[in-house]
């Protein structure tokens, strides 16, 4: 009688001993840091000595107020960074998803010659570091660089990509004669910048980063789609074929619905990733020109490490965290809404939520942004 019990106790000890390094490391470098930063975000610590020292004061939500309703430069910078990142997200997420799906569909054909070569070519940018790709991008998009040379072939005069702070939507509006803000947009605003500036679109400089993100991430997501397509298998495809559906109908009504869980994963990972643009900005433009590539992640870093406003930097990081969490939840809700009968829906959603939580995390900590 005593034996199974002691063995169970032994296993509990063994289990925790095996878990110990990971638990200690994650506790020390993930859990504890977040709690410390939470304290810093409500304190007036300026980077000298310990944030827990006696001379560090509690300032409540002042740091948050500064960036969300301070009326000063801090609020304007935060508003600008949100605007910039929002356009980046809105462009990158759909583009990378559609391109990844297209690549996957093209390279999963059984009859295709050179499948391996194509997969390798499309995936290779994903394994190189964001720093190396940024250096390459700065060259390709330099004023007399490769991209502008190619644009020149078709008679286009390429811009000075990384120096041009003009928003592309403003440029388009300018082309049809709308150069200045209508009064309603120019006088009112949100987070310290006018509505007119909110709708400027990504700057020319930011657009170059958008293209870079699509170039480097489409290969990764292509692999996820390939795995899903392989799981679907040929039988269903053939059933659709016998029913006389053409290629597009088969894709639209048979394949696409079955890809839904993967689509969800890709969109979620895309959303999480694109709200964290940092490496490219640090390496490339440091937020310039005219702050049009400033992102919340970079602003958080800059506020803390460059300007020594640690409380403000931490507050920005937590607001960014909240944005990511909220958007992920919204997306989960929106995508699960119109699916399945009502009774089944809840159960299916629960299972899916569990599964995606795991996969999602794999992506988030799987490597640097």
């Amino acid at each position, binding site marked *: 009688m005593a034996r199974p019990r002691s063995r169970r106790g032994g*296993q509990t000890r063994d289990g925790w001993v095996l878990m110990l390094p990971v638990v200690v490391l994650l506790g020390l470098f993930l859990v504890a840091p977040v709690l410390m930063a939470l304290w810093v975000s409500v304190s007036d610590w300026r980077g000298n000595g310990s944030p827990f020292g006696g001379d560090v004061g509690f300032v409540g939500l002042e740091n948050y107020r500064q960036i969300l309703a301070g009326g000063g430069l801090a609020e304007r910078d935060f508003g600008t960074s949100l605007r910039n990142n929002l356009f980046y997200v809105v462009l990158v997420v759909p583009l990378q998803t559609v391109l990844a799906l297209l690549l996957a569909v093209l390279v999963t054909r059984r009859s295709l010659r050179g499948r391996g070569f194509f997969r390798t070519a499309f995936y290779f940018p994903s394994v190189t570091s964001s720093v190396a790709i940024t250096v390459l991008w700065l060259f390709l998009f330099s004023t007399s660089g490769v991209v502008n040379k190619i644009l020149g072939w078709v008679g286009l005069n390429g811009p000075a990509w990384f120096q041009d702070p003009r928003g592309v939507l403003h440029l388009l509006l300018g082309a049809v004669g709308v150069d200045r803000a209508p009064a309603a947009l120019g006088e009112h605003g949100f987070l310290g910048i006018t509505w007119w500036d909110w709708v400027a679109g990504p700057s020319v400089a930011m657009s170059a980063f958008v293209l870079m993100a699509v170039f480097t991430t489409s290969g990764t997501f292509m692999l996820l789609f390939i795995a899903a397509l392989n799981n679907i298998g040929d039988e269903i495809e053939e059933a659709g074929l016998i029913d006389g559906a053409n290629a597009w109908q088969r894709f639209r009504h048979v394949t696409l619905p079955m890809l839904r869980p993967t689509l969800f994963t890709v969109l979620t990972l895309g959303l999480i990733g694109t709200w964290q643009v940092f490496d490219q900005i640090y390496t490339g433009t440091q937020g310039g020109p005219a702050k049009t590539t400033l992102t919340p992640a970079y602003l958080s870093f800059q506020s803390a490490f460059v300007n020594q406003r640690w409380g403000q930097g931490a507050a920005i990081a937590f607001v960014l965290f909240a944005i990511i969490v909220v958007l992920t939840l919204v997306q989960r809700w929106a995508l699960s809404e119109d699916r399945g009968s009502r009774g089944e829906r809840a159960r299916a959603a629960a299972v899916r939520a569990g599964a995606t939580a795991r996969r999602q995390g794999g992506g988030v900590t799987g490597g640097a942004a």
Partner: protein
Amino acid sequence: MSAGTPTAPRARATGTYVTYAVLVLLAVVYVMPFLIQVATSFKTEADAAANPLSLVPTTATAEAYRTLFVDSPLPTWFANSVIVTLFVTTGRVLFCSMAGYALARVPFRGRALAFAVLVAIMAVPNVVLLIPKFLVINQLAIYDSYAGLIIPLLADASAVFIMKGFFESVPASVEEAARIDGAGTFRIFWSVVLPMARPAVMTVIILSFQASWNELNHFIVASQDPDLFNLTKGVAQLASGALSQGTQYPLKLAAALLMTLPVALVFFVFQKRIVNTTTGAVKE
């Protein structure tokens, strides 16, 4: 595709040509930038500016590489990247397989809780941790040291899940036989199950290698001593104009190329495994 499908043969042939045309065009777009990078790294500055598209240098020169190896701190950066990557990869394989085994096979008290906490931890975005990590590293007095560069990267939740997934697929009978022979949990883990886990361990090695070699933001907040720069941090400084008069594109592209070579090498050696399986292949 088998014969007798409703699609007419001619339409199918046209479709095939279109597919190949699209694929080749896309492949050119994906591959060209890297070919241009290699070519430009052997050009003179004037040549790089005048003929950015050309894949053949007008007068080939290895001057950029000479400068990088002789007159720049690049060798130090390279050495630091190697040191950090070796330790981080070894540590992750060991610690994450231990935890993965415990979660998969040891029915210990608190396992469900440990699992839930791990999942929650993984949801915290990397960038949010910039300031927090610096605070802890500073508080532990390992700022500006190899310990500060390496230790925080030793555990990785996604690697734990890859190992857990593998261990769950190992038949229980294997361990039972060892248990009857009197082996304890650690013995079974170390001598029986871990040697069987070669494919999963390879995956974790490849992913950890890539992740730690390409890591930037942890190194930004963990040190400021130039002797502790790794390649990503060094090349990022180079790109934003340290070392340089003028644009120096050949030099910068050569540096970026040198830092890409090791990951490219690993990628091409293991490409079958990487491109054909997707276990944990998600890279942000």
